[in-house]
């Protein structure tokens, strides 16, 4: 006889934090569009989507998440199919890429794909938790992340494509993967060494490989995996310049500008320097709501979506930016805490996936405005204007609430 799960009330703190962040988003959008009369009602549209999203949360949270997870693969398949379909349609009759017309609205197919991947991974890893010992054990999860990445890349959205693998790693780690593998998964970034000028870098790369070998000395790690990772790193090191040559010019420009903003001051560098100017000139307390000169005078591109953080930092200053980041951090912590208090590993997995989802968006959307990341278009979840991303984000919150409502102990 199964124990009926206790149904607790939804976590008020997480709700409050989500609400605060959404409200901040409305304030940010209103501020960023204040000087463009034709966009003045953007925040109202966002509010409308918010309402829809709230309904979504309720829908999602009502049904026990463990039950919902049974349909995770189905959901994943449908969303993935939709994404591929939109690509095919785009190829056929020049429809907008990545969008499917549903019920009269253009729906971003990539957004629900993120949530679907989280859920599918949660369902997949649930039986394997604790027994992930080698790459072979990770094969399907990695594929589960790789396919959406490829589809989204085909759609041309690099920013979103970067989201899937980190989510997958975080969830794998939560499911018991050896921490060292995390290092491996991120180490091909060392392929960057292939681009650094100077004769010493190949030598440094060699030392890095030796370091990897050393770190892998734990006997638990199978030899095959070690070889795969070494080969992978070497391969990345060699392939990197080739991949570079195949990059589109504007992507190249963005990367070069990230390294040196002066490189292309009127093109790709323009956005970055405008962003820095906007943020830097905000000072401690900012210029005031709707008083952002960079965003307001159209120097900042799309200040209600991609560069919304820059606009926020300009209007509210360091104080405001810190508050916003603090809110996000609390939010992420709360998600993780709910996951930690979860009844079973699935709740924890969902929490890990959702927090990583929000974190990667935060990392890229904020990082690029302050030149800690190259410029890549990606919305700041809950803040940036955009119905699809907002609803997806709220639905993700809904799932976390769901897990929290079914937990069997208090949240640490």
């Amino acid at each position: 006889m199964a124990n009926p799960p206790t149904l607790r009330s939804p976590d008020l703190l997480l709700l409050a934090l989500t609400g605060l962040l959404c409200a901040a988003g409305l304030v940010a959008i209103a501020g960023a569009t204040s000087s463009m009369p034709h966009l003045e009602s953007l925040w109202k549209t966002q509010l409308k989507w918010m309402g829809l999203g709230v309904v979504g949360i309720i829908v999602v949270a009502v049904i026990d998440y463990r039950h919902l997870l049974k349909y995770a693969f189905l959901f994943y398949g449908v969303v993935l199919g939709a994404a591929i379909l939109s690509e095919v349609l785009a190829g056929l009759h020049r429809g907008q890429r990545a969008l499917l017309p549903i019920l009269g609205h253009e729906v971003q197919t990539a957004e629900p794909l993120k949530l679907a991947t989280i859920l599918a991974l949660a369902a997949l890893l649930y039986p394997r938790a604790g027994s992930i010992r080698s790459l072979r054990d990770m094969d399907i999860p990695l594929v589960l992340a790789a396919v959406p990445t490829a589809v989204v890349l085909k759609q041309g959205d690099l920013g979103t494509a970067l989201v899937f693998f980190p989510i997958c790693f975080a969830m794998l780690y939560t499911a018991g993967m050896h921490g060292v593998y995390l290092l491996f998964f991120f180490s091909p970034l060392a392929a960057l060494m292939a681009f650094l000028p100077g004769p010493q870098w190949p030598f440094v790369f060699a030392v890095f490989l030796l370091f990897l070998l050393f770190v892998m000395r734990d006997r638990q790690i199978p030899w095959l995996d070690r070889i795969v990772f070494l080969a992978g790193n070497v391969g990345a090191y060699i392939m990197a310049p080739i991949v570079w040559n195949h990059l589109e010019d504007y992507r190249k420009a963005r990367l070069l500008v990230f390294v040196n903003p002066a490189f292309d001051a009127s093109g790709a560098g323009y956005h970055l320097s405008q962003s820095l100017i906007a943020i830097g000139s905000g000072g401690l307390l900012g210029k005031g709501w709707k008083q952002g000169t960079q965003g307001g005078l159209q120097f900042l591109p799309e200040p209600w979506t991609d560069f919304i953080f820059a606009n926020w930092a300009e209007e509210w200053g360091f104080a405001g930016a810190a508050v916003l980041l603090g809110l996000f951090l609390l939010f992420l912590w709360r998600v993780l805490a709910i996951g930690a208090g979860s009844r079973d590993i699935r709740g924890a997995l969902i929490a890990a996936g959702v927090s990583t989802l929000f974190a990667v968006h935060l990392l890229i959307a904020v990082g690029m405005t302050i030149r800690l990341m190259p410029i890549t278009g990606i919305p700041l979840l809950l803040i940036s204007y955009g119905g699809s991303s907002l609803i997806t984000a709220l639905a993700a919150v809904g799932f976390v609430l769901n897990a929290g409502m079914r937990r069997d102990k208090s949240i640490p």
Partner: protein
Amino acid sequence: MNEIPRQAPGSIQNLRTADESGGPRSMRAPMAEKRLARIGAVLALMVAVFLLRLWTLQLKQTEHYADLARENFTRRVRVPAMRGAILDRHGIRLADNRPAYNVTIKRGSGRKAYRQFVEQCEILARHLGRDPEAFVERAKLQLPDRFRDVLVAEDIPWELMLALEERRLELKGVQVVVSPRRVYPYGSTASHLVGYMNEVSRTELEQRQDYQPGDRIGRAGIENSYESDLRGREGEETIIVSAHEVQRDSISRLEPVPGHDVRLTLDSELQASVAEIIEGSPGAVIVMDPRDGAILAMVSYPSYNPDRLGVGHGFINRAVAGVYPPGSVYKILTTAAILEERVVSARTEHFCPGYYGRSRKGCWIWDKRKYPNSPRGHGSLDLHGAFQRSCDVYFYKTGEAMGIQKLHDWAVRFGFGAPTGIDIPGERLKLGNPPDVALTQLQPGEILNASIGQGTVTTTPLQIACMTAAIANDGVLMRPRLGDAILSATGDVVRMIAPEGRDVGLSRSTLDTVQESMYRVVNVLRGTGRTSEIAGLDVCGKTGSAQHEFAHLPTHAWFTCYAPRKNPEVVVVVLLEKAGHGGSHAGPVARKVLLKWQERFQHGESADVAKS
């Protein structure tokens, strides 16, 4: 067996649960809690890094970015200052500004804006009666310059300006901009004196910090010499622009300071009359007041029209830059010199047989082809006679006796060999008479030529005028000037331009003698300058027929004079290139000029005594 154990308190470790699909599943989830915590720690680290970076940007470097932000969206726009006018002595405008209407089109971005731009160009072209295609092509050349409105038409007619204003709402982005344009109402009459303007050059930009590329600067004449008074100071406006250079608000404005007007000593009516008189004969006429050096008229023919530059020639102001042998008018200097050096007195007589010296240098009267009815020589003459009839032999003799050095010294005293200092640019030093080299290096035989103003001696008409004025005003060499006063835009005097002069050092008796001689030239029988006699006005003068360096060409005709004899008020110098005999050709011109002067200054408008 099917019992499900109670959940153990604590972490998710050792958790067993049943899911709805049946059957227990054993979950060994090693330290999921701890792992979540670790993930949390990484995220916290990320946020910390962000905060650190933000701290750097927003707190430490905020000034830097605030400056950049300001630069971003503010623009400093120059507000041009109205240039001062150039007036004659009665306030008549010789150089002025008038509004010119230029048409600009705001640039936009995108295909629609471009089409609109082309359409508007075509409309304008049709209004202006120009070929629409060519018009559009020319306008398109400016498109690459992203930061400026496109200037499509300059100085459109007033009616077109009105027509465009009426259609203003239709033609969005088309603007009529008023900009001041320099205009010269008197055209070619006073162009040498007033000057003209053109764009400032690159070297000038380097030297003068207060000029920007595209500025105009005075090039010749008063426009040039009083540039800093005329220019004023431009203002500045700071405006807010958006990313597409759309002007929004003005933040601050520094009003421009209009330039000062320059009032000249010139009488434009007299100037016009004199220009008419000399029309057709290359040469120069100067009318000057010997009491203070004020130039009342200065005409050089041929002239140019400053409103239509680039056409024709006539740029040289012959009055100040034309270099000619003075011929017999130089004898004024020689006479003064030999008197002062006591080589002769007024009564000293010498005999002129028509030639002089071993080389048998001829007196001009010797030439039988030209003067068939005259005797071969002048015969015996005193100084007055020699001067009055312009005998060369008398001056050969006395000049040689005096010596080249003394002649040279006196020449310098009379201002030869140096610029007169007139306040317009373009004066040329007289060739052949530079102070340091000069006459002292001439061969002994050349003193003869120098004494009568031939050979390597050359002067400008202005220098002759100054010399004459020095005799007229009893020995003060005045600095000639065109500028009289600097006035503010409201008419108040900002600064007077003061007369300057220096004493030549002539004794009373020398002055009396020279003045008497000059009187006789014009008013007494046998004087070479009888053609300029005017009843009631005691004109005193000297003729000159200067031999051109190519001796077969006609001589330059000179006449210099002052009037009236008692308390002289005017000096007139006439130089007609290759016109022939001074008395025959230059004299009558001077007479006409003097009559005109009388009209204006003794009986007419300019008959005011005080000029300050």
